[in-house]
């Protein structure tokens, strides 16, 4: 007998709000988190905007000694995990009696630490490399730091499948709970605003000079963001036993790989991924009420995603609202799909679908219903969370409104 898997706690740190309530309020009000980049000097760039989290204070969540020993991505991960624990309303002592998996997705890992070192290196030579480098710069530390902070014994891994990583963490967590290997999963994603990523996207000419306009005919590219989100998963049985609020049920997931190009997505790969997810969750295309799009706002991504949705949902595709909250947050890389998963859980919980903001001109190549500019009220029984990544690592997670029986 397999367990049913439910979401019982949500934590999010984003440029539009910290904590799930502020975050979702901002989402349905179409608030933008985009501002002039402040975390490093952008004077030598022709692009200046990004979605930085300006009011995150790590000391709200950990001691100053801890903050000194870790990078920002780990701090964000601990922050969103703390928020998720408070949201679930369980004490740490109680939680630690159970088997716990900490799974974090990321794109850049602790790139901020590497960036600091690079500056020193360029100035003074590599011999100044810090002895703490291995204990602060490697990507695996995101989950290790969360595990150490809360003293969670159990499974602890980072899944660095770039911009789809948050979904990968939820997918693996879903199987671990479903197969009764653990009791609780902290499925998260975390990425700090990174100079390296900013340089890279800028150089790929993928970045917009001002706003992010997914699915708009005149879209000019993506914007870089940062943030972190965590979903706490448990079995339905345990959730009932401990009287948790249930936001949504996880029904299944699909993964696929384009095997095509490191940076150019393929419509076939992402269509396969959605089909795999529907099959794994055992639902029909017409049962889907909402798709949270990967929707980065680049010409290529949005066109490919729209065409993949068409090929999977056929005649039905125009009836499904498909929105991209990256229009508000920018692309938070490894955290993007976990933040979007929080949005999906709240959409099925509250029956409200967040909009794609900055939408002005329809694009015949993206003729989906992108929920332009205004949130809509609609019963959402099933929501799909799409996330694609560099390397063609595609993922799609299926959430369902929780019903007993």
């Amino acid at each position: 007998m397999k367990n049913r898997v439910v979401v019982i706690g949500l934590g999010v740190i984003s440029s539009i709000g910290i904590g799930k309530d502020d975050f979702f309020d901002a989402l349905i009000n179409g608030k933008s988190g985009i501002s002039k980049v402040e975390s490093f000097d952008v004077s030598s760039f022709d692009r200046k905007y990004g979605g930085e989290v300006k009011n995150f204070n790590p000391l709200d969540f950990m001691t100053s000694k801890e903050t000194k020993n870790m990078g920002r991505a780990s701090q964000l991960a601990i922050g969103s995990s703390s928020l998720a624990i408070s949201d679930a309303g369980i004490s740490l002592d109680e939680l630690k009696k159970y088997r716990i998996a900490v799974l974090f997705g990321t794109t850049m890992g602790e790139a901020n630490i590497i960036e600091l070192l690079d500056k020193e290196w360029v100035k003074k030579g590599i011999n100044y490399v810090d002895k703490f480098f291995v204990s602060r710069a490697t990507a695996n530390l995101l989950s290790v730091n969360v595990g150490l902070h809360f003293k969670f014994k159990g499974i602890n891994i980072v899944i660095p499948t770039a911009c789809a990583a948050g979904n990968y963490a939820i997918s693996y967590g879903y199987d671990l709970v479903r197969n009764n290997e653990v009791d609780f999963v902290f499925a998260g994603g975390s990425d700090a605003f990174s100079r390296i990523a900013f340089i890279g996207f800028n150089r790929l000419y993928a970045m917009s000079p001002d706003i992010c306009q997914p699915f708009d005919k005149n879209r000019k590219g993506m914007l870089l963001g940062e943030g972190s989100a965590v979903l706490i998963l448990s079995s339905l049985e345990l959730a009932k036993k401990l009287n948790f609020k249930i936001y949504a049920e996880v029904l299944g997931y699909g993964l696929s790989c384009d095997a095509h190009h490191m940076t150019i997505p393929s419509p076939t790969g992402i269509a396969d991924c959605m089909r795999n997810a529907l099959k794994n969750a055992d639902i029909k295309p017409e049962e889907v009420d909402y798709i949270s799009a990967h929707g980065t706002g680049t010409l290529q991504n949005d066109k490919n995603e729209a065409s993949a949705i068409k090929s999977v949902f056929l005649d039905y595709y125009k009836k499904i609202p498909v929105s991209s909250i990256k229009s508000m947050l920018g692309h938070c890389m490894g955290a993007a799909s976990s933040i979007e998963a929080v949005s999906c859980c709240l959409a099925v919980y509250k029956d409200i679908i967040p909009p794609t903001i900055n939408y002005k001109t329809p694009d015949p190549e993206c003729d989906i219903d992108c929920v332009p500019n205004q949130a809509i009220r609609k019963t959402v029984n099933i929501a799909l969370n799409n996330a694609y990544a560099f390397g063609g690592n595609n993922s799609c997670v299926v959430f369902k409104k929780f019903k007993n029986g």
Partner: protein
Amino acid sequence: MDKIFITGLGVVSSIGIGKKDFWQGLKEAKSGVKDITLFDTSNLKVKKASYIENFKPEDLFDPKKLRTLDRTTKLLLYASKLALDDADLNIEDVNPKRIGISIGTTLGSIWSISKFDRDALIDGPHFVNPADFPNTVINSPASEVAIFFGITGPCSTISSAFSSSFDAIKYAINLLNNNHADIMIVGGVDAFCEQVYLSLYRAGFLAGLKGQELSCPFDKRRNGIIYGEGACVFILEKESLLRNSKKYAYIKSLEGLFFPFSITKYDREGRGLKEAIERAIIKEKILKEDISYILSCANSTELDLIETNVIKDVFGKLAYKIPVSSIKGSVGETFSASGALNLAASLGSFELDFIPPTINFLEKDSFCDLDYVFNKPRFCKINNILINSVGFNGDNFCLILSK
């Protein structure tokens, strides 16, 4: 539940490339440790690493396609090609959507990430090569394997330092058991990285700072790790869907446990490892008497004694009757590849009926008093191998492999 079989392997190690050379290297007690020529060590007190020489990826792949790839990716591609060939698995003959990839890697891409950044700092952000950017994402090596071989099933990358290989295997088994794939390409890779080397040096982890510069697990003179690199890939298949494949072994039990202790220190009591081994044994109802050999993760540090004590704790009197050895004297500490290299060594033990030796043994440590196989291989029949993995971040794993 279906048994999961290993039906192919590809090894790229400092003691040999390809399974035959690797196994032969182990048998001959060869060492892959050499003086570093990759960068200048004249200011350092240590000079050695276990890195791979004579690695020529252009022998197997079109050099044009390799041009922008980093070393981690090339090592992994090479090992993957060897594994696919070894398993006689031609992607054109099977449904590529049902084949998945799960690779453990942690440290290797740091070099590429930093290089890209430094290029931008020196030349200006508009003059970096955009083709170098994909190397900065940690899932790049696994994704390149998918691209090179046309594999369109799930493609995943796992980072959990020393446990990466085994976590990647656990992840792959999960996909097989839950019907997301029929065949999985799994393994681990970490390429030599100068920053990591220097950081390990300054943090005092490397051998040679407080004694002789060599990796000598369980020897009294042990004083630190020799940093190494490697790539190792396996093909995993479910018993019910086996092609006409060669069956090297099956994974009997696999248990990992993160034990929160410290970010850079081993737990002296080895509590995480102890629990991982006990769980692995209990879960599959394995008789302790049936373990014919323990492939240790001892890396010539305090870990050697910690592991020794855990083995005694778990096995009691029986501990003294089970041969134990570590190959890290030969291949060094290869981080994300270490678990996979141990697994590759185990397959050699099954195939060639030998226990690979713990090399460089000279001085006995009275606290390390198990039946270690030192300096020369021991020839005997082996049925079940218990492989340990412990990292200084708190990660622990135990894998039990059966013939």
